[in-house]
């Protein structure tokens, strides 16, 4: 016996919603990256849950791929933030307005 699918989905949905809310509310670049990470990991929890529910390993492999992709995304994000930081010290997305129009 294990934990039923519903609990996986609840945790997963919670994480995903938390991340989405973070993306919509937060304005700091680092926190935005953090929020996106939460969304991806929310999906990961659901993947593992479904994987157990259907008794296949595909979902686990998917989750592994997602982890690597998430790491790559965060690293690119940090790299760009460092590049912005070297130019001028603004990490607030609302102040990134050179391109408004």
């Amino acid at each position, binding site marked *: *016996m*294990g*934990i*039923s699918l519903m609990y996986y989905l609840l945790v997963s949905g919670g994480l995903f919603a938390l991340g989405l809310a973070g993306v919509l509310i937060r304005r700091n670049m680092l926190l935005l990256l953090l929020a996106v990470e939460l969304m991806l990991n929310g999906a990961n929890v659901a993947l593992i849950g479904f994987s157990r529910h259907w008794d296949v390993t595909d979902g686990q*492999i998917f989750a*592994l791929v997602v*982890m*690597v992709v998430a*790491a*790559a995304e*965060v*690293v690119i994000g*940090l*790299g760009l933030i*460092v590049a912005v*930081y*070297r130019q001028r010290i603004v990490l607030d997305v609302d102040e990134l307005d050179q391109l408004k129009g």
Partner: protein
Amino acid sequence: MDLYDYLPIVAFMIAGLAVGGAILTLSRIGPTKPNPAKEMPYESGILATTPVRQRFPIDFYLTAMLFIVFDIELAFLYPVALVMRDNGIPALVLLLVFTVTVVEALAYVWRKGALEWR
């Protein structure tokens, strides 16, 4: 499923909250006589001599980023290791392609001087 299996965990949480809450409440009730020695962090604490919120040098981020990438990439080796015996040479070739790509990236980063601590 059987939720009762998780009862010990719930009991543990309640006990933890009760003890913590009790200590915090009791400390408010009695008389307080503060002196400098009592205010200091103790046991493992050394007094902070610099501001607590330090700025890390940017090189730290660079190294940390590279670490994250190369660290996570190796996660792929575990599932391959699991099925290595069943798949033989093709799996080995694919593994080599993967490793060469990762090592090349490392060599590039190294050669470009991103690993130097400036």
